[in-house]
């Protein structure tokens, strides 16, 4: 076995279409609620997809997201929303972990690794129009630093004084999962004791919807029924529904967490990666990339497929759902009937570069509460499978280990495996 250090999760933070905060999002997810609606804020009449899962903004009551609580208004003005969401999720996660580096030693041993698929797409589009209409003198000095993907990590580090490794991940819809896995590696190798890791995305804008619609990736048949559009594994699914938000975890070496008496949610025991080498947007039809990715994570964890009780699927509500399902069936073999697998995208949509982080958190909470969140809208399953796809309602069950899958354009795959906290040190 490897001599890598063990890595645990000690803090969680989230802004999702279900609400602001981890417990708000999780309790609503388990209750079967969803975050979908008609797209707000820009012209949609000529767009084939007119639904999305926006962050519910408000004054902070009833689970709404109040931006002013997380970032000063004058700073919000300078950045695209993915950075605002990353700041909110990270601040929540660090507070949850009760980790506030103050000494120089604490600061240099704590780093940040945030991913995003596209970064400041909305700001790039708006500024391009401004440049064309009014010329270069009107382009803000904050245009570049407010759109760059690694500025999520940058802003978080500046806000909290985190002087360890400062890195970013860009692997489309697996960015959030890769960020968590890569950050854990930095801890395992001794480059940091603590990492704030996650993903953030805010691509619900006119050019974002137009672009994904052009790829034929978006749901177009449910514009009148937004809550019904994201329906993984269902016969009538016809594309993903875009969401936005951020998820952040505080990862920590086991020794460091135990030494300071931190509450441990889970241990990250497995991280696997693979490439499809097949197509820029479609997964390889035999599911081999997904299969090898999950296999690599199991190998790192030193576990058998039958140890996995819950899979949080990539499950985007596209034709690719069946490819992933086939890969998971191949992985589980004869024990497939013992595993539950759900797609929480049925409740929050596809958060793109934030999806892997938000779904990793849902997997950790599934372990904590021993409950598999539901796959909504699975009215008419398109596939025969022994795997329990957790239709409609959350299921209480034993969960010893949870695996979270994320796959991205370009044929990039990531799988994370979590188990419960280690038994208290003797």
């Amino acid at each position, binding site marked *: 076995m490897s001599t890598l250090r063990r890595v645990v999760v000690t803090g969680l933070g989230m802004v999702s279409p279900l609400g602001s905060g981890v417990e708000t999002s999780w309790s609503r997810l388990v209750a079967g609620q969803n975050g979908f609606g008609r797209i707000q804020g820009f012209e949609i009449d000529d767009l084939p997809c007119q639904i999305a899962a926006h962050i519910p903004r408000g004054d902070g009551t009833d689970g709404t997201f109040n931006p002013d609580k997380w970032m*000063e208004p004058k700073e919000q003005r300078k950045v695209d929303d993915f950075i605002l969401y990353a700041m909110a999720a990270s601040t929540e996660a660090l507070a949850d972990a009760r980790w506030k580096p103050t000494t120089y030693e604490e600061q240099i041993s704590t780093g940040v690794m945030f991913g995003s698929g596209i970064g400041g797409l909305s700001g790039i589009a708006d500024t391009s129009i401004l440049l064309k209409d009014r010329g270069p003198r009107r382009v803000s000095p*904050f245009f570049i630093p407010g759109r760059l993907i690694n500025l999520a990590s940058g802003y978080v580090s500046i806000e909290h004084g985190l002087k360890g490794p400062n890195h970013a991940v860009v692997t489309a819809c697996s960015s959030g999962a890769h960020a968590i896995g890569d950050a854990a590696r930095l801890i395992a190798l001794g480059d940091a004791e603590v990492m704030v890791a996650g993903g953030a995305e805010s691509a619900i804008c006119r050019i974002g919807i137009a672009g994904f619609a052009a790829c034929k990736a978006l749901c177009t048949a449910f514009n009148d029924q937004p809550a019904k559009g994201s329906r993984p594994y269902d016969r009538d699914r016809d594309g993903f529904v875009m969401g936005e938000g951020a998820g952040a975890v505080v990862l920590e070496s086991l020794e460091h967490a135990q030494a300071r008496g931190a509450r441990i949610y889970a241990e990250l025991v497995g991280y696997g990666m693979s490439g499809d080498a097949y197509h820029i947007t479609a997964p390889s039809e035999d599911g081999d990339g997904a299969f090898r990715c999950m296999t690599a994570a199991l190998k790192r964890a030193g576990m058998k497929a039958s140890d996995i009780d819950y899979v949080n699927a990539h499950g985007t509500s596209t034709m690719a759902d069946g490819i992933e399902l086939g890969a998971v069936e191949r992985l589980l073999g004869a024990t497939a009937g013992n595993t539950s697998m759900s797609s929480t995208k049925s409740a929050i949509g596809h958060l793109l570069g934030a999806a892997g982080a938000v779904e990793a958190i849902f997997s950790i909470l599934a372990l904590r509460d021993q409950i598999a969140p539901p796959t909504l809208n699975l009215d008419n399953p398109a596939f025969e499978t022994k795997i329990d796809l957790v239709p409609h309602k959350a299921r209480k069950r034993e969960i010893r280990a949870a695996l979270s899958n994320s796959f991205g354009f370009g044929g990039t795959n990531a799988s994370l495996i979590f188990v419960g906290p280690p038994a208290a040190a003797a």
Partner: protein
Amino acid sequence: MSDVAERVKKIVVEHLGVESDKVVDSANFIEDLGADSLDTVELVMAFEEEFGVEIPDDAAETIVTVGDAVKFLEKATAA
């Protein structure tokens, strides 16, 4: 207070997120009002936008206090 001074003050309060009573003639954008070098570039752009004037880079470098901005813009808009 002149009309120009009122408008300058409003822009500074909005862009730097500071209390309006701190925005006095002698206030230095960087030392007193917490601006960084990028903030000052954006402030100058906002002045140009509000007053419909162009502020060349060498002139922008001389605008370091609220009073400098008011004086420059009063002159520029009077012309």
